């Protein structure tokens, strides 16, 4: 298992360090492939086969099936590459924010507004 980058922990935050980069390598590589339309089409045509091609673990496949963003982060996904997966699902950053925080998209947007005004 690769070394942690730091001992510091931040609530609700998954630091993408070497340990995660190793764990999530295949998952992120699959997501990176979604830069190409051909890859997106191939995934959409047969998600299971496409995941298999990148040797995703069972836990990663399960999280992909369930559009479980937190699960994907836990299994080594990086938000930068995962964003290409969620883009393929037509979810924007506020949709994903809602999914991760257990809010509706509108509730999440309202929180952003409050945070933006400094009401925290």
């Amino acid at each position, binding site marked *: 298992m690769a070394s942690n*980058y*730091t001992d*510091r922990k*931040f*609530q*609700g*935050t*998954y*630091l*993408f*360090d*070497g340990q995660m*980069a190793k764990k999530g*390598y295949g998952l*992120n*590589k699959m*997501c*990176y492939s*979604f*830069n*190409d*339309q051909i890859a*997106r089409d191939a995934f959409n045509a047969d998600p299971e086969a496409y995941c298999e091609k990148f040797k995703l673990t069972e836990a990663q496949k399960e999280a992909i099936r369930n559009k479980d*963003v*937190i699960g994907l*982060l836990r299994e080594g996904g*990086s*938000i*930068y*590459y*995962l*964003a*290409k997966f969620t*883009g*393929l699902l037509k979810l*924007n*950053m*506020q949709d*994903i*924010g809602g999914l*991760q*925080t257990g809010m509706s998209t509108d509730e*999440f947007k309202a*929180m*952003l*507004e409050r*945070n*933006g*005004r*400094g009401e*925290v």
Partner: protein
Amino acid sequence: MAKIIGAVTTSHIPAIANAMANGLEETPYWKPFFDGYPPVRDWLNEKKPDVIILFYNDHGLEFFIDKKPTFAMGVADEYYNSDEGWGIPTIPPVTGESDLSWHIANSIVDEGFDMTICQEMKVDHGLTVPLNLMWPGHQYGHVKVIPVCINCEQYPMAQPWRTFELGRAIGRAVASYEEDINVVVFGTGGMSHQLDGERAGFINRAFDIDCLDKLVSNPEALTKYSNMDLVEQGGAQAVELNMLIAMRGTLLGKVTERHRNYHAPISNTGSGLMLLENEMPTAE
């Protein structure tokens, strides 16, 4: 001699490209953001810089974690965008400036900056959105751009003290370039934001404004932060502040704030637009 005459901080998020493509600038959501830009556009159109040095991070278009550079820079005469995964139409190529680029590369590698040097480099929204914000309608083909790409995706990342030093080395390199050209530096990205995890949606307005203040008059204070401090104070993706810190490093003269517009939220981020002028001491 070449001169860095000023610098701009700006957001670079993809949502801006969508808003501009769909003509949403005057909608209530976007107006307070876009209203900040005309003074900066005017200044750029007045000063007509020959070259823009643009600090950004690649969000997974050109670079993947198979081979992830801490610092990469372009030395090409042209850069291309391409599909980043959302099928958004790609945009016209960006003009490069290979001569000054190589001059900078020669100078800063000699100073101990371990650059990855790129003759081919696809550039993503981190670079193209700021250009389109300054010259809407993708009217930036006349400006030569030198892309400097800082890893913000995978730890370990360069610490703020190091990105500031990178900026300073680039500032010295420009100052030693013999052609009489004017350079403006863009520091793009940030400010506080967190896209991932249960803490998603975190924004720290007070921290952002303090960072903007420090960028003007006390940038050394920012170099005391570690990347972990930035995550704590500004959210997981606040490490993108490194691009603003690198930008500030290039300004070796007297720095004056000419314009500022802080607005939050734009998408999930705090957005800090700032225009700084840099006056180099005149040689006696």
